[in-house]
């Protein structure tokens, strides 16, 4: 039985009178791949922000490798070895791809090794042709890929990705799937995603959020076949 790397108990977040996530109990094993889905406003992004420390939950606890991280700052969470990618691409536009990735690696190793690590990541993610380019000049898909590179460079054991495939071309999405596949060899991965095509392609266990709570949790095919899920999510979307 694999170790539990991420767990939340009774996680609740209120904004004024609105309950965005309601008493969520969630757990994730090492090297597991999990997608969070749900209609807009289901609370999955709020849940994501509570785990990463971008928001402090109103109630409940977050544990990472059995250590409580409730209310920690994002930098403290990241320092544990957690790789985070936010919904909007968060990269350093004025710096080159190498400099971006070097900085991510530098947090966990000396400068020289970080340079080697950056080269390594650039090769693995096939970023060689744009390595010296400034991020601000790159296309959306390339920026997303660089941001994944920032996550990979830190050798995380837990990866949290918020809509990594948003706004990408089909080719980009395939490449993304391959990278995520490689990540799961060493890390547990949580992905918040809308794109069902993409979720199918990486074929994982899915947690469905609805009205701030977890509706069901199962393999993607079963979830898609479930009439309740179709009703709240797919039905409404069509």
């Amino acid at each position, binding site marked *: 039985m694999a170790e539990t790397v991420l767990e939340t108990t009774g996680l609740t977040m209120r904004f004024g009178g609105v309950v965005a996530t309601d008493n969520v109990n969630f757990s994730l094993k090492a090297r597991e791949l999990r997608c969070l889905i749900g209609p807009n406003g289901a609370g999955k992004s709020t849940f994501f922000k509570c785990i990463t420390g971008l928001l402090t939950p109103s109630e409940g606890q977050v544990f990472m490798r059995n250590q409580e991280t409730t209310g920690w700052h994002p930098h403290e969470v*990241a320092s544990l070895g957690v790789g985070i990618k936010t919904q909007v691409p*968060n990269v350093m536009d004025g*710096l080159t791809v190498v400099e971006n990735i*070097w900085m991510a690696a530098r*947090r966990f190793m000396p400068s020289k090794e970080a340079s080697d690590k950056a080269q390594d990541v650039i090769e693995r993610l096939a970023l060689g042709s744009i390595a010296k380019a400034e991020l601000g000049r790159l296309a959306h898909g390339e920026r997303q890929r660089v941001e994944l590179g920032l996550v990979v460079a830190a050798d995380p054991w837990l990866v949290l990705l918020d809509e990594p495939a948003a706004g990408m071309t089909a080719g980009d999405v395939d490449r993304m799937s391959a990278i995520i596949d490689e990540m799961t060899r060493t890390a547990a991965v949580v992905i918040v995603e809308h794109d069902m095509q993409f979720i199918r392609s990486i074929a994982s266990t899915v947690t469905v959020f609805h009205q701030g709570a977890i509706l069901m949790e199962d393999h993607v095919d079963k979830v898609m076949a479930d009439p309740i899920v179709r009703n709240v999510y797919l039905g409404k979307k069509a």
Partner: protein
Amino acid sequence: MSRSWGRQDAATIVAAIVLIWLMPLLISTYTLTVLVIYGMLALSLGLIWGFGGILCFGQAAFFGLGAYTYAIAAINVGESTLPMILAVFVPALFAALLGAMMFYGRLTDVYLGVITLVVTLILFKFVNSSAGPQYVIGEARLGGFNGIPGFHTLNIPGQPDEYIWGDALYYVCAVALLAVYFLVTWLLRSSFGRIAIGIRENETRVSLMGYDVRARKTILFAIGAAIAGLAGALFANWGEIVTPGLFSLGQSAEIIIWCIVGGLGTRLGPIIGAAGLAYLKFLLGQQSLIDNTLIMGIILVLFVLFLPKGIVPAVASLWKASFGRRSGRKSARRRHMRRVDSANG
């Protein structure tokens, strides 16, 4: 870029030494000294603003604090070495406390501007009204708007009677500026400096990488204040009097103008901006047709509108463009196009 570092540094030192040696032939050392000091002051803001993204409207506060610390300590101690050290550390400590308060409270942009501006005003008002005999630190009277005159000026360390003044003070200041310049260069090449640039580019991303942005900004802010404090202490030695005007908003505005005109995100830009504009002001001071402040104001507005990146980056890219193609006509056209670009942007 990394391969040419060694050669570039050597070239900088040679150029600096030649400049330090030749400039007194053109301008009196008395004027040069203050230009050098202003260059150092501008570099202090250039570091935290241009590379750290911290817009401080109150860099004059640290400059003034350095000058006052030096003056007060020099009166009490009777020699200059300890006061010089204090003049660096007191502003740094003050900035560390102020910075911690601001950055740990996640204040950004406008709020940072408000608080630094307000703190400068508080210091100015307080010092300006400290004329009464009750405002004494040790043997030094703060003197209110009259300032503090008659303190012990710079001496050779360990020999309180060997004063450094006139030409010697100029060379000391120039070498100090060169030292600070290389300190800043070294800092920016270190991991700390590179991460500071990352924070300027995207604070959230850097914190998601696991860096404590708040602590890093506070440290950078304190380093900037230390440099400003050193400039303040040298200024006190040059002027042989310190007055509340050092803390004034006008002084803060000038530091910002120097940085904008010279160019943010460069090390040389603020120094050139400061020396150039201060010299311009000195020349303008000899005529009474047009008011000085008015010209400074126009310069600031024009640069913000038409050349927000400043002179040094513009010249650098022009240099690159003409170096690459060797065609003078092309580079002239590029310059024209860039003007149009920045006017539209």
